[in-house]
């Protein structure tokens, strides 16, 4: 069958034209078999460019179109819409030849780059000439969202979604909402109380009828696809009925087990039955199975005996809850890098070397010391405190390569708060640079230096050790060029932020990528910062990258708005460029089933041959690559098309 192919070569201003002889590409492509129209234009994506294309398709009755331009991730959609709307041709008859990112931008030699552009374009012509017309597959949408993580990011996203009228399931691993933010004392740069600004939002979550809150719950398994996920959540038994619990504290008074309290960053102790903090949501006591004497009334059972309302039930069991949702927001937050990783600062063995979150608890009115800064070893007021920035950050050789972004600000805040608590004390800060970009941030740091007389020392600390009840800090002041030794009462490390411990597992379960540092990977660093690489899964908060509270809230609302846009439609369109099995060649070896990252292939029918679920398949081609028998092809990029493209590239 004779083809009627059109080729449109874009200059992209000088982006392509400076390195590729676009006129020659257009001319030579016009001579390729089946090409009846070929033209170059300065900006194909501009309105006149698009009209040229639409008219050419109609006037010449083109049956296939190649646009030689930038990456298909940018304008494939644009040109396929032109093909369909202006050219009245099936959009899947349009293919992109990427001569910008894959050619012009990576080469310097114009004649050679032009040769390559010719090959790339010719290969695309050979491919498109065998393209089929395809129709997108419509899939109904579940108008319900799951938010994973109950910190400020998850709370904000859940509230925005619920207020837009969507049903939300908020899944939190620990017994209460609040995440890391609820542990903070005051927040920079305005020094408003963290609990005071977060707890109203937590209450709002608990009161909102559109939000179903699942605490002590973890996502176990996710199947399905954008618009129609099926999520299995495992909720631990809490052994206390939240409806009945009156928060009277009778139970924890009689509980004989004492363990470290993670909400006070292990600075205080709690009982096995406890409420994390007064404002906890859900407002109920909870029984920590791992520290309880055994949930056995014969062994202990004291708490159940004293509970007047009978809220404690040892027979509760973990539940598996299955939720159908249309989209997922991942907001699993951060953990601190861990003092034990820092050998030079004592690997966490000194009581008076604290991390940033522990210092927050010391400053907090609800903290272990009731808001007095006292050092943990002897409960005396520390008169000299050394704050060490970049503890684990910006150290590609031994720790994290990246900047944790918030430490400069919270260290300035810690030093300021310390001066508020201990006016006659002296705060020292060791820093590499001060990074205080943000509204009111620079002024805040300046104020800590000028008003609170915080001594900023530019340099690194080589060693911290204990001697005669003092923490000896040895460092260097690179501005004076002298070695510095400070006999401090307390040392506070601004530890690097890293993705929370469960993030790796969540990423694996949800099949979303992570970057080199383990943070969740966004689909595009600039243009799609809240989307994961998997359609329908969105990111918010510090699980994506280190960020402060305002940025986290921004991103959470951004993710929510993306979800609202996605779920505003009744039907989602799924790409029809999906895998297709050649049953005659399939031997049912199951390799594609194992290799498919989307779980889209199963063995069915007589002889158990592979069969593709149209809406689960993303057309990635992994199956095509593993099939030894060439029994599976992706539509519009079949073996034959690949063969023809290779031939075209080789000039055969």
């Amino acid at each position: 069958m004779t083809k009627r192919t059109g080729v449109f070569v874009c200059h992209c201003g000088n982006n392509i034209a400076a390195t590729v002889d676009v006129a020659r590409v257009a001319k030579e492509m016009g001579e390729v078999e089946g090409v009846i129209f070929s033209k170059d234009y300065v900006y194909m994506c501009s309105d006149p460019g698009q009209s040229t294309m639409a008219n050419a398709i109609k006037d010449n009755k083109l049956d296939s179109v190649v646009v030689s331009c930038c990456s298909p991730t940018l304008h494939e959609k644009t040109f396929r819409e032109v093909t369909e709307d202006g050219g009245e041709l099936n959009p899947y008859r349009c293919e992109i030849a990427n001569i910008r990112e894959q050619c012009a931008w990576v080469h310097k030699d114009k004649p050679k780059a032009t040769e390559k552009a010719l090959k790339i374009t010719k290969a695309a012509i050979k491919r498109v000439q065998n393209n089929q017309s395809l129709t997108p597959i419509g899939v109904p949408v579940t108008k319900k969202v799951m938010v994973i993580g109950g910190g400020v990011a998850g709370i904000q996203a859940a509230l925005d979604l619920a207020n837009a009228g969507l049903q939300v399931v908020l899944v939190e691993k620990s017994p209460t909402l609040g995440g890391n933010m609820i542990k903070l004392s005051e927040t920079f740069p305005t020094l408003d109380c963290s609990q005071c600004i977060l707890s109203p939002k937590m209450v709002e979550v608990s009161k909102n009828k559109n939000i179903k809150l699942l605490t002590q719950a973890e996502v176990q398994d996710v199947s399905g696809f954008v618009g129609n996920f099926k999520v299995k959540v495992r909720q631990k038994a809490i052994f206390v009925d939240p409806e009945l619990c009156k928060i009277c504290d009778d139970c924890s008074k009689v509980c004989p087990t004492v363990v470290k309290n993670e909400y006070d960053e292990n600075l205080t102790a709690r009982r096995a039955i406890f409420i994390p903090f007064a404002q906890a949501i859900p407002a109920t006591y909870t029984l920590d199975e791992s520290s309880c004497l055994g949930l056995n009334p014969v062994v202990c059972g004291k708490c159940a005996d004293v509970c007047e309302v009978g809220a404690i039930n040892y027979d509760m069991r973990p539940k598996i809850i299955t939720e159908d949702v249309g989209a997922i927001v991942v907001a699993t937050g951060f953990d601190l890098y861990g003092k034990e990783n820092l050998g030079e600062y004592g690997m966490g063995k000194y009581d008076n070397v604290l991390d940033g979150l522990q210092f927050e608890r010391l400053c907090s009115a609800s903290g272990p010391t009731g808001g007095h800064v006292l050092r943990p070893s002897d409960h005396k007021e520390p008169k000299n405190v050394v704050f060490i920035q970049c503890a684990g950050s910006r150290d590609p050789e031994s720790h994290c390569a990246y900047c944790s972004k918030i430490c400069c600000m919270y260290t300035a805040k810690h030093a300021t708060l310390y001066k508020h608590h201990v006016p006659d004390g002296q705060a020292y800060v060791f820093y590499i640079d001060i990074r205080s970009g943000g509204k009111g941030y620079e002024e805040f740091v300046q104020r800590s230096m000028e008003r609170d007389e915080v001594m900023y020392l530019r340099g690194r600390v080589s060693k911290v050790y204990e001697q005669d009840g003092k923490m000896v800090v040895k460092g260097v002041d690179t501005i004076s060029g002298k070695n510095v030794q400070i006999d401090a009462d307390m040392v506070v490390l601004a530890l690097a932020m890293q993705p929370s411990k469960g993030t790796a597992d969540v990423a694996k379960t949800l099949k979303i990528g992570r970057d080199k540092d383990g943070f969740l990977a966004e689909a595009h660093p600039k243009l799609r910062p809240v989307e994961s690489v998997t359609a329908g899964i969105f990111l918010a908060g510090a699980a994506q990258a280190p960020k402060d509270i305002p940025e986290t809230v921004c991103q959470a609302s951004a993710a929510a708005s993306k979800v609202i846009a996605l779920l505003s439609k009744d039907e989602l369109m799924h790409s029809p460029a999906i895998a297709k099995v050649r049953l005659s060649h399939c031997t049912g070896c199951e390799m594609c089933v194992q290799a498919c990252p989307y779980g889209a292939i199963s063995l069915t029918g007589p002889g158990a041959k592979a069969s593709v679920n149209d809406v689960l398949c993303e057309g990635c081609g992994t199956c095509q690559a593993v099939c030894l028998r060439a029994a599976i092809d992706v539509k519009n990029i079949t073996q034959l098309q690949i063969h023809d493209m290779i031939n075209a590239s080789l000039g055969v």
Partner: protein
Amino acid sequence: MIDVAALKAHAKSLLEKGSVRAVIGYRKSTAGLLAEPATIADADATDDLIFDPTCVQNLALYLVNDKKERVHSRSDDKRPIAVVAKGCDSRAITVLLQEKHFPRESVHVIGVSCEGTGVVDARKLAKKLDGKKALSVNFDGSEAFSITTEDGAQSIPAAEVMAERCLECRSAHPTLSDMTFGEAKSERALHAPFQAVKHKMKDEQDNRWAFWARQFDRCLRCYACRSVCPMCYCEECVVDSINFAVLPDTTADEKADRIKWIERSPARSETAMYHMVRAIHLAGRCVDCAECERVCPVNIPLRLLNTRLEMEAFETFEYNPGSDMNAPTLTSSFRDTDPNSFIR
């Protein structure tokens, strides 16, 4: 020492009880020293079964052939077929099971120990005997073969006349069997794993290409290597569209879309592609039975190509083909510990 009488008795009882359709095993060849494969359906004929170091063939191939035959036969006999399997053969069967080529219950595996000595290499033996004709070869302890010539019997250190792959074998004892005869001797360690290919790879790249160019030029494209390989069971091979499967449901499009990836002419480029595609298609599947190399009429050292990829599978992914029938295959599985840091 393996008790061949017990092996025969087991085969006989299987056939007498009717629990298997037939027994695929070895018998004395009518021509030459090496044993020949035999499919025995008659209980009385089980007396022909032998097992000695001349039993070099990989009988897993006959399970593949049996499946092909049964597709066309009208028999509805659902009984399994029994097969005699050395360590390497059992690994091949495991790979076939991993690939769901046939169900586990359709085969009864009679594992046999190759006694720590492996099988004999007929060419090495001929050289060693310096023109004298060997009449029989038998296991002689775990380090020697007893060889009978017209001058009588003599004991020869097995390592001198053993097949190359047996020298490098890492799991000589059957990994999968319903019944095993002979002593479990897996450790051999005569040569380091992948020794031959590692040695070859020390050579300069240009020399290696010159070496392979010479080998590929000699290839007759007889496809004996493909025919003898139990893993080469595709209906349609990338190399020749002669066996393109035209079935009732083959569409006109599929017929039109037949692709010639490789020309049939025995030009060096085409032959090189054929052998490399075959090697790559065997990555993570080749159990190093070395049958391809043995049957090659022009002695192309095909083991070097295949073991090169097996070495990659082992050293990069710690993958041993044929070690576990329930494990996912090499190319279709992904583990977090896999190298390539860009995948997360």
